[in-house]
Protein backbone atom coordinates (compact mmCIF):
# COMPACT_ATOMS: atom_id res chain seq x y z
CA UNK A 1 0.00 0.00 0.00
CA UNK A 2 1.06 3.51 -0.71
CA UNK A 3 1.95 5.85 2.13
CA UNK A 4 2.07 9.62 2.22
CA UNK A 5 4.08 11.51 4.83
CA UNK A 6 3.76 15.15 5.75
CA UNK A 7 6.46 15.85 8.29
CA UNK A 8 5.36 19.38 9.22
CA UNK A 9 2.31 19.35 11.50
CA UNK A 10 2.17 23.13 11.47
CA UNK A 11 3.76 25.99 9.52
CA UNK A 12 3.55 29.78 9.77
CA UNK A 13 4.15 32.40 7.12
CA UNK A 14 3.98 36.16 7.03
CA UNK A 15 1.48 37.65 4.64
CA UNK A 16 3.03 38.23 1.19
CA UNK A 17 5.88 35.83 1.94
CA UNK A 18 6.53 32.39 0.44
CA UNK A 19 6.12 29.09 2.23
CA UNK A 20 6.86 25.51 1.22
CA UNK A 21 4.98 22.51 2.55
CA UNK A 22 6.70 19.14 2.36
CA UNK A 23 5.37 15.78 1.31
CA UNK A 24 6.99 12.45 0.62
CA UNK A 25 5.36 9.27 -0.54
CA UNK A 26 6.18 5.67 -1.10
CA UNK A 27 5.09 3.67 -4.11
CA UNK A 28 6.35 1.02 -6.50
CA UNK A 29 4.23 2.33 -9.35
CA UNK A 30 5.77 4.26 -12.20
CA UNK A 31 2.74 6.25 -13.29
CA UNK A 32 0.49 7.90 -10.76
CA UNK A 33 -1.13 11.13 -9.67
CA UNK A 34 -0.39 13.39 -6.73
CA UNK A 35 -2.53 16.15 -5.29
CA UNK A 36 -2.60 18.93 -2.76
CA UNK A 37 -5.96 19.60 -1.15
CA UNK A 38 -6.82 22.54 1.09
CA UNK A 39 -9.29 22.34 3.98
CA UNK A 40 -10.13 25.79 5.40
CA UNK A 41 -11.58 25.88 8.93
CA UNK A 42 -15.16 24.63 8.89
CA UNK A 43 -15.26 24.69 5.12
CA UNK A 44 -15.14 22.20 2.30
CA UNK A 45 -11.93 20.63 1.16
CA UNK A 46 -10.89 21.79 -2.30
CA UNK A 47 -8.27 20.74 -4.80
CA UNK A 48 -5.29 23.09 -4.98
CA UNK A 49 -3.07 21.44 -7.55
CA UNK A 50 -2.51 18.13 -9.33
CA UNK A 51 0.62 16.49 -10.74
CA UNK A 52 0.82 13.55 -13.11
CA UNK A 53 3.96 11.54 -12.48
CA UNK A 54 4.82 11.00 -16.12
CA UNK A 55 4.99 14.74 -16.71
CA UNK A 56 8.42 16.21 -16.12
CA UNK A 57 7.15 19.74 -15.74
CA UNK A 58 6.09 20.87 -12.30
CA UNK A 59 2.44 21.88 -12.06
CA UNK A 60 1.55 25.51 -11.39
CA UNK A 61 -1.75 27.15 -10.50
CA UNK A 62 -1.41 30.90 -10.01
CA UNK A 63 0.42 31.40 -6.69
CA UNK A 64 0.65 27.66 -6.07
CA UNK A 65 3.36 25.48 -7.54
CA UNK A 66 4.89 22.12 -6.80
CA UNK A 67 8.41 20.77 -6.74
CA UNK A 68 8.00 17.19 -7.91
CA UNK A 69 11.08 15.04 -7.48
CA UNK A 70 10.09 11.60 -8.76
CA UNK A 71 13.30 9.80 -7.90
CA UNK A 72 13.23 11.15 -4.37
CA UNK A 73 9.45 10.58 -4.12
CA UNK A 74 9.00 14.12 -2.95
CA UNK A 75 6.12 16.45 -3.77
CA UNK A 76 6.31 19.83 -2.03
CA UNK A 77 3.86 22.70 -2.38
CA UNK A 78 5.08 26.27 -2.66
CA UNK A 79 2.70 29.12 -1.93
CA UNK A 80 3.92 32.49 -3.12
CA UNK A 81 2.65 35.89 -1.96
CA UNK A 82 0.76 34.24 0.91
CA UNK A 83 -2.65 35.66 1.72
CA UNK A 84 -4.80 35.45 4.83
CA UNK A 85 -7.21 33.25 2.90
CA UNK A 86 -4.50 30.65 2.45
CA UNK A 87 -4.74 29.72 6.12
CA UNK A 88 -6.00 26.15 6.19
CA UNK A 89 -5.04 22.52 6.65
CA UNK A 90 -3.20 21.26 3.59
CA UNK A 91 -3.25 17.61 2.65
CA UNK A 92 -0.96 15.86 0.23
CA UNK A 93 -2.60 12.88 -1.47
CA UNK A 94 -1.67 9.98 -3.73
CA UNK A 95 -4.15 8.34 -6.07
CA UNK A 96 -4.00 4.62 -5.55
CA UNK A 97 -5.51 1.90 -7.69
CA UNK A 98 -9.28 1.74 -7.26
CA UNK A 99 -9.76 5.49 -7.14
CA UNK A 100 -8.56 5.54 -3.56
CA UNK A 101 -6.91 8.75 -2.46
CA UNK A 102 -4.33 8.15 0.24
CA UNK A 103 -3.88 11.29 2.30
CA UNK A 104 -1.05 12.50 4.45
CA UNK A 105 -1.72 13.62 8.01
CA UNK A 106 -1.95 17.25 6.96
CA UNK A 107 -0.10 20.48 7.67
CA UNK A 108 -1.81 23.41 9.36
CA UNK A 109 -0.75 26.65 7.68
CA UNK A 110 -1.10 29.87 9.67
CA UNK A 111 -0.77 33.20 7.89
CA UNK A 112 0.29 36.20 9.96
CA UNK A 113 -0.74 39.72 9.04
Amino acid at each position, binding site marked *: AQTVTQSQPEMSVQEAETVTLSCTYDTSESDYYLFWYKQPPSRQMILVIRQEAYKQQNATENRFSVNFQKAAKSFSLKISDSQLGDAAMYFCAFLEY*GNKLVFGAGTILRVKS
Partner: protein
Amino acid sequence: EAGVTQSPTHLIKTRGQQVTLRCSPISGHTSVYWYQQALGLGLQFLLWYDEGEERNRGNFPPRFSGRQFPNYSSELNVNALELEDSALYLCASSLDSGAGTGELFFGEGSRLTVL
Protein backbone atom coordinates in the same frame (compact mmCIF):
# COMPACT_ATOMS: atom_id res chain seq x y z
CA GLU B 1 -24.64 24.93 -9.17
CA ALA B 2 -25.14 23.14 -5.88
CA GLY B 3 -22.12 21.45 -4.41
CA VAL B 4 -21.97 18.16 -2.56
CA THR B 5 -24.47 18.22 0.26
CA GLN B 6 -24.42 16.06 3.36
CA SER B 7 -26.86 15.49 6.17
CA PRO B 8 -27.05 15.67 9.06
CA THR B 9 -24.26 18.15 9.79
CA HIS B 10 -23.91 17.10 13.40
CA LEU B 11 -25.22 14.18 15.40
CA ILE B 12 -24.65 12.52 18.73
CA LYS B 13 -25.16 8.81 19.29
CA THR B 14 -24.38 6.34 22.03
CA ARG B 15 -22.35 3.18 21.83
CA GLY B 16 -24.13 0.32 20.12
CA GLN B 17 -26.53 2.51 18.16
CA GLN B 18 -26.73 2.72 14.41
CA VAL B 19 -26.39 5.79 12.22
CA THR B 20 -27.14 6.68 8.61
CA LEU B 21 -25.41 9.54 6.88
CA ARG B 22 -26.58 10.93 3.57
CA CYS B 23 -24.86 12.52 0.63
CA SER B 24 -26.05 14.16 -2.57
CA PRO B 25 -23.36 14.55 -5.22
CA ILE B 26 -22.97 17.39 -7.63
CA SER B 27 -25.47 17.07 -10.46
CA GLY B 28 -23.99 14.91 -13.21
CA HIS B 29 -21.42 13.24 -10.99
CA THR B 30 -21.73 9.47 -10.93
CA SER B 31 -19.05 8.54 -8.42
CA VAL B 32 -19.40 9.02 -4.68
CA TYR B 33 -16.68 8.51 -2.09
CA TRP B 34 -16.80 8.34 1.69
CA TYR B 35 -13.89 9.28 3.93
CA GLN B 36 -13.50 9.27 7.69
CA GLN B 37 -11.56 12.13 9.24
CA ALA B 38 -10.87 11.23 12.84
CA LEU B 39 -8.90 13.55 15.08
CA GLY B 40 -5.21 12.96 14.63
CA LEU B 41 -5.67 10.27 12.00
CA GLY B 42 -6.14 12.27 8.83
CA LEU B 43 -8.53 11.14 6.13
CA GLN B 44 -9.12 7.45 5.73
CA PHE B 45 -10.80 6.03 2.64
CA LEU B 46 -14.02 4.19 3.41
CA LEU B 47 -15.96 3.45 0.24
CA TRP B 48 -16.29 4.28 -3.43
CA TYR B 49 -19.55 3.90 -5.33
CA ASP B 50 -20.06 4.34 -9.02
CA GLU B 51 -23.20 3.73 -11.05
CA GLY B 52 -24.86 2.12 -8.07
CA GLU B 53 -22.11 -0.40 -7.42
CA GLU B 54 -19.50 -0.57 -4.67
CA ARG B 55 -16.17 -0.32 -6.52
CA ASN B 56 -13.66 -0.20 -3.71
CA ARG B 57 -13.59 -0.43 0.04
CA GLY B 58 -11.09 0.75 2.60
CA ASN B 59 -9.79 -1.15 5.60
CA PHE B 60 -12.89 -0.81 7.77
CA PRO B 61 -14.99 -3.50 9.47
CA PRO B 62 -18.21 -4.76 7.83
CA ARG B 63 -20.35 -2.69 10.19
CA PHE B 64 -19.48 0.20 7.88
CA SER B 65 -21.63 -0.16 4.79
CA GLY B 66 -23.42 1.95 2.29
CA ARG B 67 -25.21 2.15 -0.97
CA GLN B 68 -25.74 4.39 -3.94
CA PHE B 69 -29.18 5.08 -5.32
CA PRO B 70 -30.25 5.44 -8.97
CA ASN B 71 -30.09 9.23 -8.63
CA TYR B 72 -26.42 8.79 -7.51
CA SER B 73 -27.04 9.95 -3.97
CA SER B 74 -25.53 7.77 -1.31
CA GLU B 75 -25.90 6.60 2.25
CA LEU B 76 -23.28 5.50 4.72
CA ASN B 77 -24.47 3.21 7.49
CA VAL B 78 -22.52 2.45 10.60
CA ASN B 79 -23.85 -0.27 12.91
CA ALA B 80 -22.92 -1.05 16.50
CA LEU B 81 -21.25 2.31 17.01
CA GLU B 82 -18.04 2.43 18.98
CA LEU B 83 -16.39 5.39 20.66
CA GLU B 84 -13.62 5.44 18.05
CA ASP B 85 -16.20 6.00 15.30
CA SER B 86 -16.40 9.61 16.45
CA ALA B 87 -15.19 11.56 13.46
CA LEU B 88 -16.04 13.86 10.60
CA TYR B 89 -17.43 11.80 7.74
CA LEU B 90 -16.77 13.40 4.40
CA CYS B 91 -18.55 12.60 1.19
CA ALA B 92 -17.06 13.51 -2.16
CA SER B 93 -18.15 13.14 -5.75
CA SER B 94 -16.42 13.11 -9.09
CA LEU B 95 -17.58 13.48 -12.65
CA ASP B 96 -16.74 9.95 -13.67
CA SER B 97 -15.02 6.84 -12.49
CA GLY B 98 -11.80 7.49 -14.33
CA ALA B 99 -8.84 7.35 -12.02
CA GLY B 100 -6.91 9.86 -14.01
CA THR B 101 -8.37 13.14 -12.92
CA GLY B 102 -8.66 12.39 -9.25
CA GLU B 103 -10.40 15.67 -8.56
CA LEU B 104 -12.90 15.08 -5.86
CA PHE B 105 -15.48 17.63 -4.78
CA PHE B 106 -16.10 17.38 -1.07
CA GLY B 107 -19.07 18.16 1.09
CA GLU B 108 -18.77 19.88 4.45
CA GLY B 109 -19.12 16.61 6.29
CA SER B 110 -21.22 15.04 9.01
CA ARG B 111 -19.73 15.34 12.48
CA LEU B 112 -20.53 12.19 14.47
CA THR B 113 -19.95 12.02 18.19
CA VAL B 114 -20.34 8.68 19.92
CA LEU B 115 -20.78 8.76 23.69
